């Protein structure tokens, strides 16, 4: 009986999406913006790599720091955000049986707001009025329109957040006693985190706007930095949560297996949501004005994310081994051979997962007191996030494209396109390995990040970094090739691939699995816990920063 119910459960929504081509259009629009942003951002990335190594000189009207700001914002904020929304709304539509009309409207509103925001932000950057990098630390003051653009971006995200909350709530009301589908649960986690993460940065931006307009003379620099990182690092973990949604709920289906124990998956989601926001403080480990004991507490809070991450590693390898053995894999590692390595939908996320091992290890280094001091603001950090974001997250996103785009555009993934995908994945992996690897080494040697080409008056230490910078440039070149192939593949699958039906590969639980416990659905409680953890982390330092605030800083433009 329960099994039959589950059948209906997983079959019906699939048709539902078919009945709602409008939902597909929402997702496809977001994905299109994502990949346009990826393309521009990728080109800018290569320009940066070449300039950094001294292989090319950028014209004065488009200098290194403008390019760096645009690269950061387009990839770190625009690409990941729009991709996530496109993907999560497709999941939601699939698993909840279609979006509500008002939610669809909210999603479109969000899109419009974000486009306005991105337009404002990029215009100010191109005009040279906002070379403040994507961290925009005051007292560097960009044009007010830059910050207003950011407000629009946040409003766009909020519109989508409310859409998700409304749809989820609606489904809950109509399905008493049933746990929500796993993918919807993930979406709820992602957007809850997003909403609460963006509160801090919104407060920051809203204080910066009157300051840049000259209505307010000074700003508290340390508080602004803290608010920024309460968002900045959570954003990283939002991507991570999005990627894990594919690892847990999609990848098992692609390799022909079942997903892991749902109770544990939900626990991981809840832990990631509750523990996440305080992680940002490790970006301020060598800041003045924050006491050692607070920093120590925050090392603990940052690293506590390791626990759900290790749970994920355990669960995924369990699923792989179980599936491989079912397919006849023998011996200690024989099951590995049985996995579908030639399928890009598996290969890309698999490499992403593997890269999370060095990525996580590097994260532990960045997050801990003394080790951070060695590598803070060096190329090491850049290498680190190109492994974590550039591989663990982005390669998962790329892998998702190969079923999501054809599914949404009612086309099929051809053998040829699969091969293109595999080649793209390999190019990407090699490119990132070369680039991020050399960045890690250069960083250990002291090469600073966020710095245009320089030899520091031919200082021997600085000269010793240059060879590594050539390797960055080589890696960046490969990566741009990867970007071009990926963008081509996505738009090909969107408009040119042969028509047909592609399945939505949502994994199912093992046959005798217990249903997910209903207490995991108590989002009210999780939000309260999240707020409590935030209070634990932030009340002490923020009160200290405000009570012992030095006189503030006026806006300064140094570019």
């Amino acid at each position, binding site marked *: 009986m329960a099994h039959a119910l589950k059948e209906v459960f997983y079959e019906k929504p699939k048709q539902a999406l078919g009945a709602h081509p409008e939902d597909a259009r929402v997702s496809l629009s977001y994905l299109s913006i994502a990949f346009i942003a990826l393309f521009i951002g990728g080109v800018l990335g290569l320009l940066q790599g070449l300039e950094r190594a001294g292989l090319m000189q950028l014209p004065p009207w488009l*200098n290194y*720091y403008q390019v*760096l700001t645009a690269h950061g914002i387009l990839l770190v904020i625009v690409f990941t955000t729009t991709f996530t929304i496109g993907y999560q709304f497709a999941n939601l539509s699939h698993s909840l049986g279609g979006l509500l009309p008002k939610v669809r409207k909210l999603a479109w509103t969000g899109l419009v707001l974000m486009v306005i925001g991105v337009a404002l932000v990029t215009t100010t950057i191109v005009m040279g009025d906002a070379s403040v*990098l994507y961290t925009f*630390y005051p*007292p560097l003051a960009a044009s007010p329109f830059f910050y207003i653009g950011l407000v629009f971006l946040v409003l766009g995200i909020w519109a989508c957040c409310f859409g998700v909350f409304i749809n989820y709530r609606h489904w809950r009301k109509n399905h008493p006693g049933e746990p929500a589908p796993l993918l919807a649960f993930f979406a709820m986690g992602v957007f809850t985190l997003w909403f609460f993460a963006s509160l801090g940065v919104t407060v920051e931006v809203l204080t910066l706007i009157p300051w840049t307009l000259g209505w307010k003379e000074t700003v508290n620099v*340390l508080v602004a*930095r803290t608010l920024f990182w309460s968002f900045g690092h959570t954003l990283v973990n939002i991507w991570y949560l999005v990627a894990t949604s594919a690892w847990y709920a999609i990848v098992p289906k692609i390799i022909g297996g079942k997903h892991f124990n749902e109770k*544990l998956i939900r626990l991981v989601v809840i832990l990631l949501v509750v523990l996440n926001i305080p992680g940002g403080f490790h970006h*301020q*480990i*060598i*800041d*003045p*004005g*924050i*006491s*050692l004991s607070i*920093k*120590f507490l925050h*090392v*603990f809070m940052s*690293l*506590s994310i*390791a*626990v759900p991450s*290790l*749970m994920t590693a*355990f669960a995924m390898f369990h699923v792989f081994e179980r599936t491989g053995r079912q397919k006849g894999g023998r011996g200690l590692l024989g099951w590995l051979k049985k996995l579908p390595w030639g399928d890009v939908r598996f290969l890309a996320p698999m490499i992403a997962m593997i890269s999370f091992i060095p990525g996580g290890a590097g994260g532990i280094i960045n997050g*801990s*007191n*003394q080790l*951070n*001091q*060695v590598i*803070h*603001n*060096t190329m090491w950090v850049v290498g680190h996030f190109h492994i974590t974001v550039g591989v663990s997250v982005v390669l998962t996103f790329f892998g998702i494209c190969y079923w999501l785009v054809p599914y949404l555009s009612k086309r099929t993934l051809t053998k040829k396109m699969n091969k293109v995908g595999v080649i793209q994945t390999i190019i990407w992996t090699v490119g990132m390995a070369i680039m991020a690897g050399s960045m890690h080494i250069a960083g250990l*040697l*002291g090469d*600073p*990040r*966020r*710095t*245009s*080409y*320089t030899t*520091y*008056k031919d*200082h021997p*230490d*600085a000269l010793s970094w240059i060879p590594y910078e050539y390797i960055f440039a080589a890696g960046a070149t490969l990566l741009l090739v990867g970007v071009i192939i990926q963008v081509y593949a996505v738009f090909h699958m969107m408009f040119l691939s042969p028509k047909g039906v592609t399945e939505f590969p949502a994994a199912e639980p093992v046959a005798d699995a217990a249903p997910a416990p209903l207490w995991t659905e108590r989002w009210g409680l999780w939000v309260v816990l999240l707020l409590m953890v935030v209070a634990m982390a932030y009340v002490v330092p923020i009160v200290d920063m405000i009570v*012992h*605030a*030095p*006189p503030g*800083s006026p806006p*300064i433009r*140094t*570019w």
Partner: protein
Amino acid sequence: MHRLEETWLTVSAGILIIFMFIVGYQTFAMGMGPPSNKETIDPQKVEETAPFDHPGVFKVGENKYEVVMTMEAFSFNPDDITVPKGAEVEFVLTTKDVVHGFQVAGTNINAMVTPGHIQRISQTFDEPGEYLILCNEYCGVAHQLMSTTITVN
């Protein structure tokens, strides 16, 4: 299966706790904590405020030096400083404008210098040589030129 999960979780939580012990021991017992000085200053009146009204290298004890330094886009004051070999040097830093980073390549000196705050960081220079001091936080159009040296002889 259930047992495996639990062992795994215990091990991962255990690693976290052991790690925190090591970090805590280094920070609090060995005094290796990251630079976290809490003194403040008016960022718009740096030049009138002691000790930054007279930046420079000062001998404060037996082979102990204090370097009072201001940073601004895109220079260090004083620049090209010299200290004897084996000297224990405490850098007392602040910025007159935006956020800067203070890094000495080849050492563990790495600290953020934010406006309104006075940062302190110490290092003993045992190896003679000309060390590169650079700003590692983006501070403006000529950020890449912001550097100086500390010579140890």
